[in-house]
């Protein structure tokens, strides 16, 4: 299946393009920055470190739609990058570690839903939160930093499918704009 994936037209067109992979990577970084940036705001509230003057439920309403939208963008660009060299990424230790961490992040969210979230009405406005919320928030911060580190290390340990040795003279950016040399 992985071989089929990297032979698909989408995977081939990304590999053959000078720009697509770097652009996908850039969108991936924007997405993950917004995922971690918004999650960190909520986690710091749950830890009682910041935004303690706002109800946790209001914070969640303000933040989580952006978190999920950014996560969708990150997952889509990540999937496209994976498709270009699926076999290599699949066997990369850091890619696997990152996937496991993402699953753990999901389970950690589930724990929050099943524990502290159930009694949120009682501590929504309080600056001190239940210890279960603090534990979930700490684990969340650790996991997401781990996801970022593992993701960055993939780039250093997995060989890219095709690295254009140099810009093909007919497709680089200045020619794209049609500017004189």
């Amino acid at each position: 299946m992985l071989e089929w994936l990297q032979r698909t037209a989408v995977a081939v067109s990304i590999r053959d393009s000078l720009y697509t992979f770097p652009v996908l990577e850039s969108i991936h970084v924007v997405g993950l920055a917004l995922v971690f940036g918004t999650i960190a705001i909520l986690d710091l509230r749950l830890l009682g470190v910041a935004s303690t003057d706002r109800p946790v439920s209001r914070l969640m309403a303000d933040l989580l739609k952006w978190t999920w939208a950014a996560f969708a963008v990150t997952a889509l660009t990540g999937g496209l990058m994976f498709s270009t060299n699926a076999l290599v990424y699949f066997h990369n230790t850091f890619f696997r570690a990152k996937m496991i961490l993402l699953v753990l992040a999901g389970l950690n969210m589930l724990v929050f839903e099943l524990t502290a979230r159930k009694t949120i009405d009682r501590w929504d406005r309080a600056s001190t939160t239940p210890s279960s919320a603090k534990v979930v928030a700490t684990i969340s911060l650790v996991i997401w930093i781990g996801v970022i580190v593992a993701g960055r290390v993939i780039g250093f340990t997995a060989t890219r499918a095709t690295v254009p040795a140099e810009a093909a003279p007919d497709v680089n950016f200045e020619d794209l704009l049609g500017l004189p040399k």
Partner: protein
Amino acid sequence: MHQFALWLASTPPSVFIQEHNAWAIPAIQSVHIVGIALVMGSVLMIDLRILGLAWTEQSLQQTSNRFGPWLTGSLWLLLATGLLMVVGEPVRELVSFSFWLKMALVAIGAAVAVSFQRALRRHEQQWGATLAHRPSIKALAVLTFLVWICVIFLGRLIAYDHVWGSWSPAQRL
């Protein structure tokens, strides 16, 4: 610039990072990305507050007080880790079109952030009453967010400077 980069690459701190590049470069870049995330989270919240899409039961001043210090602090963290990357890989960073365009946009983004926080502190009443509702201020909020997104793109493109063709000084080395 190439000569300077070569000299920098021969200095002891640079040699140290080069000798330990297997872990040092990914580690520095990871901290840099965490800093980017804190900047983007803070900028998003301040901009959403200006647009009236989040933090609405608090004043703009309160929202700025909450995120301004995180934004400024994260920018210092990015400067520190960014400097380490320049010291560790001087030619890759300094002899690249993406890097210098990025620095120009970072200067614009940081200048907007600092002057916005200053203006807010100085004219708090006006901001709450009228300024924050002006379309030009809302447009500036969107524009600033786009500048930071471009900064992220250019940061990643340092690794792919050849996409700029002959604009990339690396092509002439």
